[in-house]
C-alpha cells in the first residue's frame, strides 16, 4: 500500500505548494518532514537499515575513510620521492607504502566508490523503484566490504605487505616475507561485496523499473551501472580464485605458479589481469555514466546519440574482457598473442572515443551552465582525453616495450582511474548532494575546489609522463638524479591536489548542518530522482511514478513537480492515484 508521507507538514495553502517548485523561494525546512534521514534515529537504525539510501551513506563513510588512508600513503610516497636518495624511509617501508596505497585505492576506493555510494543511492530513485531488489543482501554487501576492509587494515597495521597491489608470483608466493595471505583474504572477502552489489543492480534494473520506464528511457547512469554490474559478476570470481591460489601456493607449495614444481609464474599474470583489466572498466564506466548525466543536465539537452552512448558501455564491458594480455607485452608471451591483444586494445578504445564525441555534440545548441558538478564533468573529459590517448601509446606494441613498467604507465592509469573515476565521483557527489543530504553545498567553494583539484592533478601526473619516457622505472624507492626535477613537480602537484581534496570534505560535512536547505529539484531537471522530495522519503516516492517522458526530456519547471505530492486538504489517509 502506498502511503503518503509528510502529512504533518502540509500547510493547506496553494502558495506553499508552489513554493516547492518555484526556483528562488525557500522551501519548507527539512526537519519538519519525514524523510529517510529522520525517519529513525540511533546507531541501530543505521547499522540494521535496509534502506538503499542509508546503505549508500554507510558506504560513503567507509569509502571516504579508505580514500583518506590511501591518500595519506600517496602523500608519503610523494614525500619520499622529493629526493633521489631513498632517505625518508627504508626501501622495505617504501615498498609497503605503494603497495598499501594501491590496495586501498583500487580495491577499497575506486572499485566501490561510484557504484556502492552513488549507484546504491540512485539506481532505485532513477528507475522509480522503492529500493533495490534485495535490500538485505545490499546491507550484507556493506558488512562484507567493511569486514574485508578491517581485515586488510589489520594486515597492514600488523606489518603490511610489500608485493605491490599486483601480487606478482613468484615474489608473492615464495619470496616476500610479509602479510600476503592476510591482505589477499581481505581483498577476497571484499570481492563478495562487489559481486552482491552487481547482482542486486542487475536484478533491480531488470525487474523493478517503474511503469513506462522502458530500457531506452533509462538514464545513461543506469546503463553504465548495468554494464559495470556485468563485469563485477563475471570478473570478480576470477580474482577470488587467483587470490586463493596464491594463498594456497604460499601456505602449501602446491606448485601452481612455482616453476621448480612445474608451475608457471606467468599464469598468475594471465589470471590477475583477466580480472584487473576489466576492473579498470568497473572504475571508469560508472564515472562515464555520471558524466553523461552531468553533460546532458547542465546543458539541458538530451544526450546526442543516446543508444550509441548506452551500447558503447556494454561494448566496453564485453571487449574489456579480451584485452588483458596488453599488460604482458614484455613478459615473454608469444609475439602473436601480443599482436592480437594490441589489436583488441585499439578496438576497445573506439567506444570510449564515441562517448567523448557524443558528449561534445550534446552541448551543441544547449543552455550550458557551469555549476560545480558540470566543472567536474568537463574536468573528466579533459583528463580522460589525455588518459585515453596515452592508452594508445601503451597499446602500440613497439612503444609499450619502452614505456611499460615506467612512470609513463603510472601517469596513464592515474589519469584514467583518478582523473576519470575521482572526477566523476566528486561531480556526482556534488550533483546529487541536495538529494542525498537535503542541503546545498556552497557553490563558490565548490567551483574553487574543482579548479584546485584539476590544477593539482595535472601538475602531479603530467611530469610523470616525461619521467617515464625518459626511462624512470616505477616502484623505485631511490632513483637516478636526472629524474629529480619531474619528481619535485609531481610532489608539489600532489600537495595541491591533497589540499584541494580536503576542501570538499570540509564544506560537504559543514553543509549537512549549515548548508542552504535544498528544494526537491534544485537544478530543474526531468530525472525521476528530482521528482521526489529532498531528501526522499524512505519509500523514495509518494506514489509509484508512471513514466511518460523520454530520458532527458527537459521542460519548464512548473511541469517538473514532485510526483504524488499531496493536494491541499488531503489527510493522507488513502493511496494517491498515479500522477504523470
Amino acid at each position: 500500500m502506498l502511503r503518503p508521507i509528510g502529512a504533518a507538514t502540509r500547510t493547506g495553502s496553494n502558495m506553499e505548494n508552489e513554493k516547492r517548485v518555484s526556483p528562488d523561494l525557500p522551501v519548507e525546512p527539512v526537519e519538519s518532514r519525514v524523510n529517510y534521514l529522520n525517519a529513525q534515529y540511533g546507531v541501530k537504525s543505521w547499522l540494521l537499515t535496509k534502506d538503499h539510501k542509508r546503505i549508500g551513506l554507510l558506504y560513503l563513510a567507509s569509502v571516504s575513510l579508505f580514500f583518506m588512508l590511501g591518500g595519506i600513503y600517496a602523500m608519503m610516497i610523494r614525500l619520499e620521492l622529493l629526493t633521489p636518495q631513498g632517505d625518508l624511509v627504508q626501501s622495505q617501508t617504501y615498498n609497503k607504502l605503494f603497495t598499501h596505497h594501491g590496495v586501498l585505492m583500487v580495491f577499497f576506493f575506486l572499485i566501490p566508490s561510484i557504484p556502492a555510494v552513488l549507484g546504491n543511492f540512485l539506481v532505485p530513485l532513477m528507475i522509480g523503484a522503492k529500493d533495490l531488489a534485495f535490500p538485505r543482501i545490499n546491507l550484507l554487501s556493506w558488512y562484507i566490504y567493511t569486514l574485508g576492509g578491517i581485515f586488510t587494515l589489520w594486515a597492514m597495521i600488523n606489518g603490511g605487505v610489500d608485493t605491490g597491489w599486483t601480487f606478482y608470483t613468484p615474489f608473492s608466493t615464495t619470496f616476500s616475507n610479509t602479510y600476503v595471505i592476510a591482505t589477499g583474504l581481505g581483498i577476497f572477502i571484499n570481492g563478495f561485496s562487489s559481486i552482491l552489489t552487481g547482482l542486486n543492480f542487475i536484478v533491480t534494473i531488470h525487474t523493478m523499473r517503474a511503469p513506462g520506464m522502458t530500457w531506452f528511457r533509462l538514464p545513461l547512469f543506469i546503463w553504465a551501472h548495468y554494464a559495470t554490474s556485468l563485469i563485477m559478476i563475471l570478473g570478480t570470481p576470477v580474482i577470488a580464485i587467483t587470490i586463493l591460489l596464491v594463498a594456497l601456493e604460499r601456505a602449501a607449495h602446491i606448485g601452481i605458479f612455482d616453476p621448480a614444481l612445474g608451475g608457471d609464474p606467468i599464469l598468475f599474470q594471465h589470471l590477475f589481469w583477466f580480472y584487473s583489466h576489466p576492473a579498470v572498466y568497473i572504475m571508469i564506466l560508472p564515472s562515464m555514466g555520471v558524466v553523461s548525466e552531468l553533460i546532458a543536465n547542465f546543458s539541458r539537452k538530451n544526450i546526442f546519440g543516446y543508444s550509441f552512448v548506452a551500447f558503447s558501455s556494454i561494448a566496453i564491458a564485453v571487449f574489456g574482457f579480451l584485452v588483458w594480455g596488453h599488460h604482458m607485452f614484455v613478459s615473454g608471451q608469444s609475439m602473436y598473442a601480443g599482436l592480437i591483444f594490441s589489436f583488441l586494445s585499439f578496438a576497445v578504445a573506439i567506444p570510449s572515443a564515441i562517448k567523448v564525441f557524443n558528449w561534445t555534440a550534446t552541448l551543441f545548441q544547449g543552455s550550458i551552465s557551469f555549476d560545480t558538478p558540470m566543472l567536474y564533468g568537463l574536468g573528466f573529459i579533459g583528463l580522460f582525453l589525455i588518459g585515453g590517448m596515452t592508452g594508445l601509446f601503451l597499446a602500440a606494441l613497439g612503444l609499450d616495450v619502452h614505456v611499460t613498467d615506467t612512470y609513463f604507465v603510472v601517469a596513464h592509469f592515474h589519469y584514467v582511474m583518478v582523473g576519470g573515476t575521482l572526477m566523476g565521483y566528486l561531480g556526482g557527489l556534488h550533483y546529487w548532494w541536495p538529494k542525498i543530504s537535503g542541503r546545498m553545498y556552497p557553490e563558490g567553494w565548490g567551483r574553487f575546489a574543482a579548479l584546485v583539484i584539476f590544477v593539482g592533478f595535472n601538475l602531479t601526473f603530467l611530469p610523470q609522463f616525461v619521467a617515464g619516457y625518459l626511462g624512470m622505472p616505477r616502484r623505485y624507492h631511490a632513483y637516478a638524479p636526472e629524474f629529480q626535477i619531474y619528481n619535485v613537480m609531481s610532489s608539489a602537484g600532489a600537495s595541491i591536489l591533497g589540499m584541494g581534496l580536503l576542501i570538499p570534505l570540509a564544506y560537504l560535512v559543514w553543509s549537512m548542518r549549515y548548508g542552504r536547505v535544498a528544494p526537491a529539484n534544485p537544478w530543474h531537471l526531468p530525472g525521476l530522482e528530482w521528482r521526489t522530495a529532498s531528501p526522499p522519503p524512505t519509500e523514495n516516492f509518494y506514489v509509484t511514478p508512471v513514466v511518460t517522458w523520454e530520458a532527458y526530456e527537459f521542460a519548464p519547471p512548473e511541469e517538473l513537480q514532485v510526483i504524488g505530492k499531496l493536494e491541499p486538504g488531503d489527510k493522507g489517509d488513502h493511496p494517491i492515484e498515479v500522477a504523470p
Partner: protein
Amino acid sequence: MPEQASTFASKVDALYFYLCGLTVFFTLLIISVLIFFFVKYRKRAPFEVPRPIAGSIKLETLWSVIPFMIAMSIFVWGASVYFAQYRMPKDGMEIFVVGKQWMWKFQHSTGQREINELHIPVGRKIKLTMTTEDVIHDLYIPAFRTKADVVPGRYTSLWFEPTKPGRYRLFCAEYCGTNHSGMGGWVEVMTQTDFDNWLSGNANQVSPVEAGKQLFTTTLGCATCHNADGTGGRGPALTGLYGKTVQLEGGGTVTADEAYIREAILNPQGQLVVGYQPIMPTFKGQLNEDQLLQLIAYIKSLSPGQSSGIETAAPASANNPQAGAATPAGQGAKSPDAQRSNPLNATAPQPSANGSGNNAAPNRRGNQNRQ
C-alpha cells in the same frame, strides 16, 4: 627525450612523436570545440528548454570509422616496431644474463663475467639469453628503447644493436622486492678496438662452452652415457641436436631449443626421446642457472651451423613443429632451499651449503678466477 643509442631508438621515437601529434591534435580539437560551445551556447535565461536533437547516424559512423582507421595505423606501426625488437637475429653476439635479487650477472661467450655492468662493442648485434634465479625481473635500457622480463624456469631473449659509444643506464623494470630500485647498473658501449682491448685485459677466462664441456665430461659425468664428444651411447646423441625436431616416446615431437634442453636436464623423464630407457637421473638442485646456461652453450656448440642430421629425428620429423614453442615453462632449477642460496654470487662467494651443490663448486671457482 632520452639519448638515442640503439637502432630501435629512432623507430620508437618516431612512433612516439606520431602519437604525441595525434594526442595534441585531438585534445586541442575537442577542447576548442568545447570552448566554442561554452561561449556560444552558455545559459542565457533560466529554465531554457533547448530544441532536442536525437543524434545522427552519419556523424556516429564518421567518428567511429575515422578513429578506428587512425587506431589501426598506430597498431600496424607499433607491431612492426615490436617485431623488430623481439625477432632475434641469427648472427647476434650472444651474452648470457642471470638476474637475481638484486643484481644482474652477465657472461660473455668468451667467458668474461660481469655484474651490473655490461661491456659491448658498438655496431654489433647483441643477443641476450636471460633467466633468473629467483623472482621475475626485467632488463631495461632506456637509451636502447627496449626491455624484456626475465622469468624463472624460462629463457627469454632480448637483442639490440648499439649505435653510439657511451655509458647508458640499465634498470630492473619489474618490481622484485626490497632493493628493486638498487638493481641496476650501466651498459658500456665501446668501439670495437676498445672492446677488444677490454676483452684481452680480462683474458684467461673459461668460455661458457668450455665450462659446459668440463661440466659435461668431468663434473657431472654426462659423458658416461652421452659419450665424451656427444655422439651418444646409452643416452641419445647430442651432436647436431640443437634446433632439430626430436621424436618423443609415446608420440609427439619437440624442437630441441634451450627450453627443451633445460627440461631434459632437470626433468629427464618428462619428454623422453623415442627408443631410450628412462634411466637418466635428474640434475635438479645440482646446477645453478649459470651452469645450466653453460651446459646448454656446450650442447649448442655440438651443432655447428645446425646442419648435420640427427638419428633421433629420423621419421616424420616435420610433424608438429610448434610443439617446442608450446612446451610449458620447464622445470625449475632448484629446490626452494637452493633458490635462496647463491653459489655464483660474487658478493658472497662461499660454496653452496647443500651437499649436491658442492659438486659444481670447484668448476664455479675455476670460472671466477678473474676476481
